[in-house]
């Protein structure tokens, strides 16, 4: 039953033109119209990314090597940088380190064919905010970029999170929906906390596994689905509208019930 409700927002149903996207975004409470710089030397991959980002309602730029990427990032203001690790002229990590040393804190996602544990650590140490291994699904990249762009800085973190009639108190660790207290296990609390921090944005299974469990591998069994359905049974059980929805082919989204 939940699955049927949840299949509401496949990525492909998003509007095709930027103007429509803007309208669509403002209505549907999506993260939209972000300025994204894609630094990627493979022309085909870059074309695909630019097209896909435009279709998702964003405003992407492209740089074909590390040096021009660095210049563009220095002279424009972007919401997110997508940096390929291996680039001609200047490799991605060095370009990113250069930017960071100038005090530029634009969120950056590193794309790499190297996916080993320590490569990711190295990427994050060089100033990357997220790391994605090739090959990846575009839905995964999109979800991560949208979360990155609106990432709440820790010092601005609120003690009270609220999405619709769902409330979460980080101090007392209490969760209520419609005033009724909901009892959660510590991990379920972390899961809900992350979903609420990113309410209205699609989060993928791997993002949840990384953020909530701090594991960066791909378990054979889809463990996240089971945890989500447990959480869902606790927060959506007694209510007509499900807030925690499945986005087919992408992940999950926590949304306030649409005002009807």
């Amino acid at each position, binding site marked *: 039953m939940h699955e049927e409700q949840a299949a509401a927002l496949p990525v492909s149903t998003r509007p095709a033109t930027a103007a429509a996207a803007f309208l669509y975004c403002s209505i549907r409470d999506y993260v939209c119209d972000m300025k994204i710089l894609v630094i990627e030397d493979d022309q085909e991959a870059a074309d695909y990314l630019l097209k896909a980002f435009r279709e998702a309602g964003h405003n992407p730029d492209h740089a074909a090597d590390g040096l021009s990427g660095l210049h563009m990032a220095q002279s424009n203001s972007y919401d997110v940088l997508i940096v390929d690790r291996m680039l001609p002229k200047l490799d991605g990590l060095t370009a990113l380190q250069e930017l960071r040393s100038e005090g530029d804190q634009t969120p950056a996602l590193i794309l790499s064919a190297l*996916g080993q544990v320590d490569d990711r650590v190295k990427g994050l140490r060089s100033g990357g905010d997220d790391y994605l291994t090739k090959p990846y699904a575009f839905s995964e990249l999109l979800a991560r970029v949208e979360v990155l762009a609106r990432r709440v800085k820790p010092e601005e973190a609120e003690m009270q999170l609220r999405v619709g009639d769902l409330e979460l108190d980080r101090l007392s660790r209490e969760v209520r929906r419609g005033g009724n207290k909901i009892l959660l296990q510590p991990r379920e609390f972390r899961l809900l906390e992350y979903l609420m921090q990113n309410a209205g944005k699609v989060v993928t299974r791997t993002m949840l596994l990384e953020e909530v469990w701090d594991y960066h*591998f791909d378990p054979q069994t889809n463990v996240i689905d089971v945890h989500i359905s447990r959480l869902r049974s606790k927060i959506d059980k007694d209510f007509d509208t499900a807030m925690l929805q499945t986005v087919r082919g992408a992940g999950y989204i926590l949304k306030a019930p649409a005002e009807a």
Partner: protein
Amino acid sequence: MWNRLRLLWSVTAVRLSVAYTLAFGLLALFLVFYMSGSAVQFLTSQYRDAIEREAAGLQLVYERRGINAMIREMEFRSRGPGASLYVVADKEGNILAGNVRDLDKKILITNGWTRHPFPYDGFGDQTNRKDDERSRAVAVTFSLPDAMQVMVGKDIGDPDRFRNIVRRALGLSMTMMLVAGFLIWFFLGRRALKRIDMVSRSTERIMAGDRAERLPVTGANDEFDRLSARMNNMLDRISTLDSGLRDVSDSIAHDLKTPLTRLRNKVEAALASDPGKREAQDVLNEVIADSDSIIKTFNALLMISRVESGSQVAELNGLDLTELVHDVHELYEPVAEEEGVELRLETAPGVKTIGNRELLAQGLTNLLDNSLKYGRPENGNPAVVTLRLESGGGKAVISVSDNGPGIPSEHRDKVRERFHRLDKSRSKPGSGLGLALVEAVAKLHSGTLELGDSEPGLSARLVLPAK
């Protein structure tokens, strides 16, 4: 020959031996001089005692019976074998009586001990000899009340001879020692050269492509043997990696081709049937799912070979295994419940190791996945999977046991290999890479993966060094 010597000189052992021989030679030389010198000194001091006793005796004779009696006594003593030297002289040093014909007058007019041995001529000696041919003596001189000088001395030809004998003997033995030392080192060095030649010939053969060739180990357990053994271990490791790499390429060829062909056929069939929009979308979704699973397999393969290739893949840090096991249990408990399997947890507190949290967690989830997938009892009993952490004897053991059909012992080595699946029909999902990764992770942590019988069922034990 000259080249051979130069080659020998380039052997560290030979250079060191020459240095040792030189240092030893210098020490021995010092010892020779010291020993002969002190022997002479000992003899001289014995002479002095004897001279002093004689001088005292003569003085006593003089005091009791006068000068003539003393001279008679001197003459009497002179006739005995090994007699001392006696001289009675006037104030100017002219010899009046005694058994010495000539000596430096200064000695006769200076009272007390002569400072150095001095030359003299006895009555039997030839005249006009050169100074270094003349006999030498030590002596004491004293005055008598009636303006007479008396000297009593002893010829020291004996200590000189003794010194020469000692020096000659020591010199001879030292020369022998040096020659023998050099010869011994020469042959030892030649032996060392031979061993090195053997090693370099072996490495040449290995470089030429003979992967089975190993460096010679003679069993002498010397440093050459140890070096060869180390190099052989290294060669073993390299060939393991090498064959691992070959395995991977074989497996890729074999096990990735199949799903790729399936994928291609699917697309081809869809194209041929001229699909409508709906069907095309379904096929495309299937294609995505298929390629995802191929990517997954590919990633797993890469992961395994990189973990197998050594520790530079991942940092190993201090790690709380108790916490890790709790985390993984917490992650899998809902999955097990959904599958109708009871997942039990038995842990020991505070078990630590040096390891990589990601890799160990991934290995552990692979074991749990296996048990959940294949570990169900066939007789319809409720399925129970136990995740257990134990420690003791410097080891930490994480085990996952189920009460399913288990793995027959003859298959337990096979299932660790890449792509090996017991389920020949391949009806259940799985890549056949799970245990291969666990094994690689265990090895990376200097541990082992043991597959045993939990009667009934499989018990997979990850044995790690505890910290």
